[in-house]
């Protein structure tokens, strides 16, 4: 069964960001027929995240959240818009992931805001961030302004985004990138510890 992790960065309770996240999770579960959904609320991780930025390592619940996110079959990420972009809390979480942690992971991007004037935040802020992280971003993202929650159109956008995202999750991307005739695969830290590159090879590469 696919495991979908939902990261939401809403600050208030109840939160419209969490509300949108729940709708996207439900629509995705429906599209996949079945899925295990795990929620990661960043509000509770604000202090551990600040500590991680200063000390360079996660602990406790943050370590568990990072483990959940980096081992997910697909991610739904939802941020409120702050000053024309994702919130600092949202960005901080993705800042502390190891390089390569989201390589090839399907991601559904979504955002909430007070006004529909911020809707391009999806394509100007969230999409480039996840492209940089080498995630596979679903073509449709969902932006919901406060007044969208009272209109019919939001539902259709949620269905469409969840359908595209579910298709990506159901057909996992190859985590390697083919260049010329060599398959270059970035190895995770865990893989390197389990099966280290032999020293003779490191020595050859060092002087090549």
């Amino acid at each position, binding site marked *: 069964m696919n495991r979908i992790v939902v990261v939401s960065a809403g600050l208030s309770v109840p939160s419209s960001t969490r509300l949108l996240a729940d709708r996207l999770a439900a629509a995705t579960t429906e599209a996949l027929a079945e899925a295990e959904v795990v929620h990661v609320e960043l509000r509770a991780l604000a202090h551990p995240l600040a500590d991680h930025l*200063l*000390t360079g*390592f996660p602990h406790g619940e943050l370590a568990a959240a990072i483990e959940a996110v980096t081992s997910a079959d697909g991610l739904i990420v939802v941020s409120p818009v702050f000053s024309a972009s994702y919130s600092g809390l949202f960005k901080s979480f993705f800042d502390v992931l190891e390089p390569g942690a989201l390589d090839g992971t399907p991601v559904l991007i979504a955002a909430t805001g007070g006004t529909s004037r911020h809707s391009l935040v999806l394509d100007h802020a969230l999409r480039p961030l996840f492209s940089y992280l080498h995630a596979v971003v679903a073509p449709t993202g969902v932006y919901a302004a406060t007044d969208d929650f009272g209109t019919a159109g939001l539902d259709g956008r949620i269905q469409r985004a969840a359908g595209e995202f579910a298709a990506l999750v159901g057909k996992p991307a190859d985590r390697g990138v083919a260049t010329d005739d060599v398959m270059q695969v970035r190895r995770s*830290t865990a893989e*390197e510890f389990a099966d*280290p590159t032999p*020293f003779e090879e*490191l*020595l050859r590469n*060092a002087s090549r």
Partner: protein
Amino acid sequence: MGMQFGIFTVGDVTTDPTTVRTPTEHERIKATVAIAKKAEEVGLDVFATGEHHNPPFIASAPTTTLAYIGAQTEKIILSTATTLITTTDPVLIAENYAKLQHLTDGRVDLMMGRGNTGPVYPWFGKDIRDGIELAIENYSLLHKLWREDVVNWQGKHRTPLQGFTSTPRPLDGVPPFVWHGSIRSPEIAEQAAYYGDGFFHNHIFWPASHTAQMVELYRRRFEHYGHGQAHEAIVGLGGQVFMRRNSQDAINEFRPYFDKAPVYGHGPSLEDFMEQTPLTVGSPQQVIERTLGFREYAGDYQRQLFLMDHAGLPLKVVLEQLDLLGEVVEVLRKEFAAVRKPGVPDAPTHATRVAAAGGPADSSVYAAADDVTGH
């Protein structure tokens, strides 16, 4: 000598947050010497200094510092923690530390590391993106320079050498023992294992899980490369402590230093950080118990160094700490020896390495003479 105990310093010039006074470079340099001499006086085995080339550190020119301390001490082993194998010419390392070996009658070893900051690379004409490559290529040359009298060598990161002899040759024909230090790079554990050198984990500021993971990899690969069984690999660990007879006094006194310290200050609370990392602030007995626990995840190991002079602690307090550490180490020696598994090697020293090599062999290299005149 089963295990070695000592101290390591990063040579930071940090404002004392309780008096808001910052020592001068001169004061800090002289304090480092006083600390090293005190370490010998209280019965420690090792003094190690870091190498940094930027403020707020006074840890540049490590061989100058170590030679000066060496001249004023008799027994203590002088080490680095760490030598920048990435940005320092291996030819200079070979010369400087072989010279130090002669001057101090073999009381020298080195710990290799990659450096603390990106800009240090361009200061020495290098590129941080080559960090691992430099650590690997430079060390392979250094290893050769200490073992072969005449070296022909070609690599990517420095000019080739043709018929080069590094002088002086190592004391008694035995190069200084080398440790490789890294917090999280598996390549460095692999490197230490390949050469059968020691592996040191700084074991401060980060969770012990990093240490366990690196030491496990090093031991496994040490065995793979045929240097002995995993439990025979040579492991060193760091640690950071602050002690008073009464543990609450230790916490109250250290807290302002912790709260504003470089690296972890302004972050987690002292209590959280003690739980998350090997930092121990408390009574000598608490330090003894915590330290004895390190072997549970690192195995029986050979060297334990403590960071004692960090975060702006004044010299007087550091010297008091060393008095306490002397008492703690006396207990640790006995307790570690009592639980040590059979077959675990002793910490390497120049004397044991010379003995293992079959005795001292003068390795002086003389310039070639004319075959006809003898001149």
